[in-house]
């Protein structure tokens, strides 16, 4: 079913074949999404989806290909020192900001300092905190010294939050710059009406060539069902986050879809510190009793990938062999493990220990969105099938996070764990499970896991890294400190009138809009 889903959406991890036809200039493309902007500033907006706008407005120093590997963008090339603490980047010459100011090393320093000064940080722009110093060797040569070696340093520079902004425009606009950003990108910011739309116009002097599209209109439509209907009505050309049901309908109507399921993790977090969950047999039983396919089919109509080993399938560090053999859905084995742990099944359908205590493990779960609640209910039903009672306590998100954040071991037994990696690099996936992460939601204290994650942060070559992350995945399976479930799918849809290639970066998939065009006369 999953494979079928991937085929349905056009290959899942690869690049779509270029659309046939000769590119035509002109036309304004309309994109619809449900993001609510606070303001359109690339660096200080707290909206994660702002990344899509940032790619239209400006460029970062590096970019990523479909597999998540680093490629040059505004930095043409780079050199790293032997100790991996100094990077020298050669910047592209002849690039200008949309206000005519030249792009140079000082603009990079200005942009990164701007991020550093802002109090709210999103991962991975925490990379800015790892910078020890920046120096313009000459206008097009930048030296960056970092505090500790980081194999993901160049990848992190590709983050959409780290796109360049014009120091000149930011200087004269002051506070107003957050409402009228100026970058190096293919489209210029024109206007923004809160709750309505943002309008962008073509940057004729774009360094990668004049875009075909005359402009972009990005409409805020809160209902994803209505977004899909706008596509159907021919009023929109691209929808960023399409729900599974409308996605199936759009596919039948001839729209192009792409599934990006590599950058988020959804799991049931187990408090490893709390009895009876400190018994590995119970944790393993829960993993065997989990039917991941059911979650994916119910919540995403098959448009998601199962998560088994703590590293998503689309990451180059994913080990298919470990995933294939780890915890196949097997209720009999789950039952046997619980028997062995002393929890026997009684005629009432529940399991009890020798003292007559029922195997009841409460689960704290956020009460919204509905899809999340459904996930909790599915887990509850699947565990009931092996005689475990899981009372589901639905609470507001603020209360939910206070519950498991409580020091030192949290107040929870089981709870939801949903996090984004923002990257296809296995280090970004693995580090979610380090005991020192702010969200050690599993309260595990497995030193070996910390050690292997730390080792990963010192491993620079892909071949070596694959060995490290293979070990990480083995440990995840061996210790069963959580119940990984799936990588949710983000489906992007575009109309048959919109042509062009798409690529994927840390924010998911997106069309290379500077190369996109609208087929004349198409409706």
């Amino acid at each position, binding site marked *: 079913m999953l494979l079928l889903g991937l085929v349905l959406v056009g290959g899942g991890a690869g690049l779509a074949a270029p659309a046939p036809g000769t590119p035509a200039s002109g036309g304004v493309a309309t994109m619809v999404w449900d993001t609510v902007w606070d303001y359109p500033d690339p660096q200080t907006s*707290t909206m994660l989806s702002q990344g899509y706008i940032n790619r239209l407005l400006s460029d970062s120093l590096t970019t990523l290909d479909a597999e998540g590997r680093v490629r040059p963008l505004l930095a043409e090339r780079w050199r790293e020192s032997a100790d991996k603490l100094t990077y020298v980047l050669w910047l592209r010459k002849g690039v200008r900001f949309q206000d005519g100011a030249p792009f140079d090393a000082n603009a990079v320093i200005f942009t990164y300092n701007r991020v550093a000064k802002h109090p*709210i940080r999103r991962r991975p722009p925490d990379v800015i905190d790892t910078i020890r110093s920046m120096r313009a060797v000459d206008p097009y040569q930048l030296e960056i010294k970092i505090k500790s070696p980081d194999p993901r340093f160049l990848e992190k520079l590709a983050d959409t939050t780290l796109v360049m902004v014009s120091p000149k425009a930011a200087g004269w606009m002051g506070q107003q710059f957050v409402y009228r950003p100026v970058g190096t990108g293919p489209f210029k910011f024109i206007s923004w009406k809160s*709750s309505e739309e943002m309008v962008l116009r073509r940057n004729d002097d774009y360094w990668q060539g004049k875009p075909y599209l005359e402009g972009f209109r990005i*409409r805020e*439509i*809160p209902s994803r069902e*209505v977004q899909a*209907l706008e596509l159907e009505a021919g009023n929109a050309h691209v929808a960023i986050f399409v729900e599974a049901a409308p996605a199936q309908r759009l596919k039948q109507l001839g729209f192009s879809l792409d599934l990006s399921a590599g950058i988020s993790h959804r799991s049931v977090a187990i408090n490893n510190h709390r009895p009876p969950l400190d018994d590995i047999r119970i944790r393993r039983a829960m993993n065997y009793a989990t039917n991941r396919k059911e979650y994916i089919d119910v919540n995403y109509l098959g448009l998601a990938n199962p998560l088994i080993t703590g590293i998503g399938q689309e990451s180059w560090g994913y080990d298919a062999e470990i995933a294939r053999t780890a915890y196949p859905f097997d209720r009999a084995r789950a039952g046997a493990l619980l028997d062995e742990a002393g929890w026997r099944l009684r005629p009432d359908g529940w399991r009890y220990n020798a003292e007559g205590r029922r195997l009841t493990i409460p689960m704290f779960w956020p009460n919204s969105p509905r899809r999340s609640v459904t996930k909790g209910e599915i887990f509850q039903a699947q565990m009931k099938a092996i005689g475990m009672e899981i009372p589901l306590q639905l609470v507001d998100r603020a209360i939910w996070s206070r519950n498991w954040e409580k020091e030192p071991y949290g107040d929870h037994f089981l709870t939801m764990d949903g996090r984004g990696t923002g990257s296809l690099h296995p280090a970004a996936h693995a580090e979610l499970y380090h005991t020192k992460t702010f969200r050690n939601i599993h309260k595990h204290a497995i030193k070996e896991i910390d050690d292997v994650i730390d080792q990963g942060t010192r491993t620079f070559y892909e071949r070596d890294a694959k060995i490290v992350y293979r070990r990480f995945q083995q440990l995840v399976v061996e210790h069963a400190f959580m119940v990984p479930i799936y990588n949710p799918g983000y489906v992007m849809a575009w109309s048959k009138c919109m042509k062009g290639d798409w690529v994927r970066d840390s924010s998911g998939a997106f069309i290379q809009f500077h190369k996109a065009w609208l087929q004349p006369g198409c409706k």
Partner: protein
Amino acid sequence: MVLAPDESARLTKAAVEEFRRKHGLDQPLAVQYLRYMQGLLRLDFGTSIRTSQPIAGEFAKRLPATMQLGAAGLLISVAIGVVVGVVAAVRRGSLLDRVIQPIAFLGVSIPSFWQGILLIMVFAILLRWLPPSGWGDGIFAEGGWRYLILPALTLGTGGAALLVRMVRTSMLDVLNQDFVRTARAKGVVERLVVYRHALRNAMIPVITLIGLRIGDLIGGSVIVETVFAWPGIGRYMIQAIGVRDFPVVQSVTLLLALSYVLANLAVDVAYAYFDPRIRFD
């Protein structure tokens, strides 16, 4: 609530302190309350946490959209509700009455978000008569009225169904009273009996319901504005709830309460018009 752990975890301690100072949260609750009340007297609703923009300014931008939608919804409610309600009452027990009753029941029962999607599918996708969502350049721009129809219908039909039931019941009550029988006995034309004598007397409970609907239309627009991407107060409220922008939630709640109070005041005044026996002594 103001700084839920999700958000505060991303901030430095200094940033949290700065945030608390900027929004006056470092002051005792009584001081915060007094400051808020002082601000209200100057129509200063405070500042949005999300956008750092004055809430009063957002109200000024969004209130016209909500008022236009509310007014159109109310117009549809009253026009359909009163006319169909009277027809159902006058033709009590007829086939028409039997058709109207279940439709009115259905109208009351259908949730507006579902009805909205259904209307979009029929009128925007299937028939291609109207745009699915949005506001265009405002309803007074060329063709702007087309954007208003579907959300106004969604907002208005639920209320219309309620009114149909209320008008029918109220009219039946009045049509059986002595003064109506007297009017008919005196040879007054049936149309005048119904519209001049009966309807005016039947309007008192209906006016009460319409008054409540005025408040509901502003509150109900929360859902309809979200479905149709209508840039009004209701949508502002939903956005604010989603990001725990509590000064905005608080201010919109206050505005909603105020709309109910004003609607009730208007109803009291309208009573006197429809029934001159009711006076403010």
